[in-house]
Each structure stands twice: as structure tokens, then as C-alpha cells.
């Protein structure tokens, strides 16, 4: 769980997220931590929508991890869902401070291989950031909830009217 450094993280993650979206040609991208806390986003226009996707991403990650353990598969790499017109890519990666999850939605302008390739580069860049270099101490649930709300306010404050990171 992140605490009072969310605002700085949003700023630090803005450029890597922009590069990922540009290179992978994803339409929508979201970076959350294992608790479902939103750290960066691109393409969402609604706060309610991004909260739902963040919670579902954290839940899918937790379920997939248990499933991998149960089947002896070890760590899982990514989840890919190919819809009729849009595709979903969801992948966890570990940093020294915490596990993060990237969710990307793309269409025929991109491919799974392209998204996966630039996800790997994105994850490598995030791992090198000093903001993710230290192990985080635990915080209370109420403090987390307050930060979650404040983080969403900050993420959506500058671009309420359209798409963008």
C-alpha cells in the first residue's frame, strides 16, 4: 500500500506510461499495485470506471497467483483476453517495493506481442525508479482508503474532459 507519496508517483510514472501507450499502441492503460490502488492511467475518462478496473485487476492477479500455486505453475506471466474488437492484457511485475499490475486494452492496431514487448520495457524502467527501490512498511486500511480517494482526485483533476494520461 502506498501512502503520501502518490502525488509524486503520478508525476514520475507519467512519462513511462506515455511511452508505453505510444509504442504499444494501446488505447487504455492502467497501473495499479497489488491492493488495487491506482498509480497511473491513460485513456480512462471516468473515475468510477477506473476504480472498477483497478479492483478487478487486483482481484484477477490474486486469483491467478493462487491458481498458479495450486497447479504448480509458479508465477504467472500475463492474462490475455482476445475479444471481438478489443483485447485485454493484464500482467504483474515485481519491484523491490511492491508488486504492480499493468492493464492494457488494445485493438487491431496493435498485437499481443507488441504489447508484451513494451510491457517488459515499461516494467524494467519502473524497477529502476528510486521511488520503487525500498520495501514499504504496512499502513492501516483507513489511511489507505483516504489515499485511494486522494490519488484518484489527483489523477483525474487535470483532464476531466477527455482522454490522456
Amino acid at each position, binding site marked *: 500500500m502506498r501512502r503520501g507519496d502518490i502525488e509524486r508517483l503520478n508525476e514520475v510514472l507519467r512519462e513511462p506510461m506515455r511511452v508505453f501507450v505510444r509504442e504499444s499502441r494501446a488505447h487504455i492503460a492502467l497501473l495499479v499495485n497489488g491492493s488495487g490502488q491506482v498509480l497511473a492511467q491513460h485513456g480512462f475518462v471516468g473515475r468510477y470506471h477506473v476504480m472498477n478496473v483497478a479492483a478487478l485487476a487486483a482481484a484477477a492477479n490474486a486469483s491467478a497467483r493462487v491458481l498458479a500455486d495450486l497447479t504448480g505453475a509458479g508465477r504467472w506471466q500475463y492474462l490475455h483476453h482476445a475479444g471481438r474488437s478489443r483485447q485485454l492484457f493484464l500482467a504483474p511485475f515485481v519491484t523491490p517495493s511492491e508488486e504492480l499490475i499493468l492493464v492494457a486494452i488494445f485493438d487491431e492496431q*496493435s*498485437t*499481443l*506481442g*507488441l504489447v*508484451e*514487448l513494451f510491457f517488459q520495457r515499461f516494467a524494467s524502467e519502473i524497477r529502476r525508479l528510486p521511488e520503487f527501490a525500498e520495501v514499504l512498511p504496512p499502513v492501516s486500511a483507513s489511511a489507505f482508503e483516504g489515499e485511494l480517494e486522494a490519488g484518484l482526485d489527483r489523477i483525474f483533476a487535470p483532464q476531466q474532459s477527455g482522454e490522456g494520461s
Partner: protein
Amino acid sequence: MSDVVSAALSRLSQVPGVRSALLVDAEAGVPVASELSAGVSGEAVAALAASLFQRTEQAARDAALGGLGSLQLETEDGHVVVAGGRQLIVVVIADRDAQLGLIRLETDRAVEALR
């Protein structure tokens, strides 16, 4: 790996000057089978070659030139040949002094065999 895919890759790899050969799922941009030289990332080459092929094909269609059969890149140290169809594409990475005519011939044969 099926016999057809295996044989196609094997023939391509045996052409003098060929460093790596890959069969790539065109829609997903991921390798289906590959014979790679050391230091070559099959996943990265597959993703980027598939993207390049799709973009070039789109450009050809937009220019009223019809569908794309193959494309060839010349780089400082070698060549990349990409050919294929809707489902599978063949990617060949070759030395600068490789016999490109032979590579093109074997690439076309591989595409035919995979149809």
C-alpha cells in the same frame, strides 16, 4: 512443431548467411517457431516484424498497390526479410553478404508450404 513448419524453418536456416528464421503468428505478433542465433530475442523480433509487416501492408493498400507479398530491410550489418499472409509470416535475419536471391526463394517456398 508440425513437420511442415519444422521443415520450412530448417530449409531457411540452412541457406548460407541466414542467422535466424522465425515463423510468427501475424495477428498476435508472437513467435510460433524459431531458430535463433545467440543474442536475438525471438519475442521482440516477432512483435516488431509483425507490426512492420501490417503497417507496410496497410500503406501498400492505401497507395492502391494491392496486398503485400514481402518486404526487405537493409541494415548496417545485414538484412531482414519478412513475407507471408494473414495468419503466418516468415521472418529471416541474414548477414550483409548473404545470397538474398536464395533467401527470397526459400522464404517464398516457406510461405507457400504454410498456406
